[in-house]
C-alpha cells in the first residue's frame, strides 16, 4: 500500500517538471534569439515622411484630410498625422514612343486614364532612432522605398515611402 502511494506523480514532481520546462524554454529562447534587435528609442526625433499611394480611385480621395490620423493597418498603431496632401492624375506608360527634346532619342509616351490618382501624403510623427541612425515609428522602419501598410479612417492601402527628413 505504501509503495503504491510513493509511485504516484505528486505535486512536487509536477512543480519540478514545470521548472524544468521553463528552463528549457528560457534556454532555447536565449540560445536561438538573434542578436539583431538594434537598440531603439535611444533618442526621439521629429520625422516628416512622404508616402506615395498609387492608382487611388477618385471616390476614396475624401478619406485623406490634413491633420487626420494615420495608423499602421497591420498593427493599428498610430504612426503620424497628415501635414500635406498632393494628388495628380495617375498614368500608364504606353507602347508608343516619341522623339525626345534633343531629337536624338525616344521617350515613352505616358497617358492618363480613368478617374484614378497618385496621392502623395506627407506625415509628421515622432520617430525613435536606433543605434545605426535608422528611424522607426512603432517598429516600422522609415527608409525610402520601404512599403508601409497604412490606414486612413476605414481605408487601408499599401504605400511606398518616397522621402523623409528628421530634426
Amino acid at each position, binding site marked *: 500500500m505504501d509503495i503504491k502511494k510513493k509511485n504516484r506523480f505528486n505535486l512536487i514532481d509536477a512543480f519540478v517538471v514545470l521548472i*524544468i520546462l521553463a528552463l528549457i524554454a528560457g534556454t532555447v529562447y536565449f*540560445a536561438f534569439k538573434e542578436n539583431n534587435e538594434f537598440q531603439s528609442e535611444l533618442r526621439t526625433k521629429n520625422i516628416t515622411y512622404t508616402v506615395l499611394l498609387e492608382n487611388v480611385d477618385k471616390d476614396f480621395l475624401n478619406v485623406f484630410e490634413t491633420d487626420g490620423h494615420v495608423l499602421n493597418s497591420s498593427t493599428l498603431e498610430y504612426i503620424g498625422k497628415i501635414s500635406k496632401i498632393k494628388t495628380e492624375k495617375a498614368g500608364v506608360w504606353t507602347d508608343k514612343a516619341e522623339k525626345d527634346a534633343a531629337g536624338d532619342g525616344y521617350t515613352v509616351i505616358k497617358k492618363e486614364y480613368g478617374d484614378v490618382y497618385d496621392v502623395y501624403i506627407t506625415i509628421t510623427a515622432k520617430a525613435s532612432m536606433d543605434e545605426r541612425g535608422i528611424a522607426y515609428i512603432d517598429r516600422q522602419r522609415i527608409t*525610402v522605398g520601404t512599403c508601409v501598410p497604412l490606414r486612413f479612417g476605414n481605408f487601408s492601402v499599401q504605400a511606398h515611402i518616397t522621402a523623409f527628413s528628421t530634426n
Partner: protein
Amino acid sequence: MNTKNNSDTPRFNIADVIIIIAIIAVIAALALRVYNIFGTGDEVHEVKIEFEAAPVSEESIALKEKAKLYSSADDSLVGYLEAFETEDYFQYAYNEEGELVKAAVPGKKTVTGTIVLECTKTENGFYLGGTLLLSEGGTLKLYTSMREMEFTVLKITEIEEEEESENNSSNMFNNADGVQADSHAK
C-alpha cells in the same frame, strides 16, 4: 526495518526521467548554439556583387557610396555599397513610323554598381547570412539607413585575399561610412 523500507522505495520514477530528458535537451541546445557560433567550419569570404536595380524613381534614388547594407529579412549587417551609377531606364516602344525603338521612360532610372557582402563559402557557392544562396539573376532585398532596394545580382566575384590587403580592407565594415539618417532623400 530500515533496510526493508529502502528496498521498497522506487528510486527512479517518471519525474526523474523527465528531468534527465530536460537536462539533455538544455545541453543539446547550448551545444548547438556554441557550434553555430564557433564551429560551423564554413569559411567567411568577401564577395563582390555587380548589381542592377530598375526602374527606380529619379527623385528617390537616395543611395550613398560606402553606406552600410543591412538585410531586409533579418536586419543583420551584411556589407556595404561600394559604388553605383545611374542611367536612363529604357523600354521598347513603337515610334511614329511603327518601328520598334528603344525609348527612355521619363522619371525612371536604372541603377548599376557593386556591393561587397560577407558570405560563407560552401561547395554549393556563397551563402548570405548562412541561409540565402547567392545566384546570378537572383535578387537581394537590402537597405541602408536611407534607402531600401531590391538588387538584381548580375555577377558574383570572390574578393581575393591579396586584393583585400592591397586595398587595406581587412575589415570591410570599417570602410563603410554610416549615412546621416536626417539627410532628406533626393
